[in-house]
């Protein structure tokens, strides 16, 4: 049974697609240029500590302001 031109074209496209899928297999490691993911993601831990300290610092400043008000009234 002869294939029509349309069918041939579809087959070609399908094969091309399957090849491109096969070729696009990612390598073993997809290392991205992402600073926080480098060095075993240790910078995530550093940033976590920074968040905690920043939170505490903001909290301290707010308490400082409150105490100042209290002192001024005396």
């Amino acid at each position: 049974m002869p294939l029509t031109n349309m069918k041939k074209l579809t087959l070609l496209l399908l094969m091309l697609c399957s090849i491109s899928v096969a070729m696009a297999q990612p390598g073993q490691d997809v290392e991205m240029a992402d600073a926080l993911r480098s060095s075993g993601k240790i910078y995530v831990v550093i940033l976590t500590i920074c968040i905690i300290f920043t939170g505490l610092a903001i909290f301290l400043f707010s308490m400082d302001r409150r105490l100042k008000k209290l002192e001024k009234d005396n």
Partner: protein
Amino acid sequence: MKFIYQTWWKVIAVLLVLSTFVTGLLFKVPRLPIIHETIRNLYFHVPMWMGMLTVFVVSVYYSIKYLRSGKEEYDIAAVECVNTGLVFYVMGLCTGMLWAKYTWGEFWSGDAKQNSAAIAFLLYCAYLVLRNSMDEEQKRAKISAIYNIFAFPVMIVLIFVLPRMTASLHPGSGGNPAFGKYDLDNGMKLAFYPAMLGWSFIALWIATLRYRMRLIEYKKNAID
């Protein structure tokens, strides 16, 4: 109440937390895929929740004490504990979101643990809104004490019980092991337990400072 004016436990708390900056960042941890070094967040993210829990428990204790005695100081202690707890709450949420971004892929992935933590956060925000909506002192103290006593178990269920019963990415949920088994075979508890204890007492210390400030404010208002 003499305990809150003593210094020794504050020094111990500071030393405990200080030690975890060294032990937590230098000690050996298990090599796990995806998590990598972020497992060290265990010493900083989890203690935030422990600190929050400590002050919320103290807050409930003082709410009950208030209802039994009607002393204004107990109400002040309860509200300042909640204020401090909420700051630790926010720090726990933010550090958790950052950790989630680099292990789960998104800051907020609608995970059961994250969603119920957000709901419980609103629950406690409602406590503060409720307080501020009432002018009459005794009524405010009484209603908010009752609200606080009921909000606490709901918060516990939302954060610590419900996410564990459904599928969640968070360790300790949905048959997914917590880090418990790792700290037993590695020296991780050497840094983890001091962090938990230290941060709890730091939270308590901040709450007592705020309590003392508010007590002065209250006494001054009473004189005026």
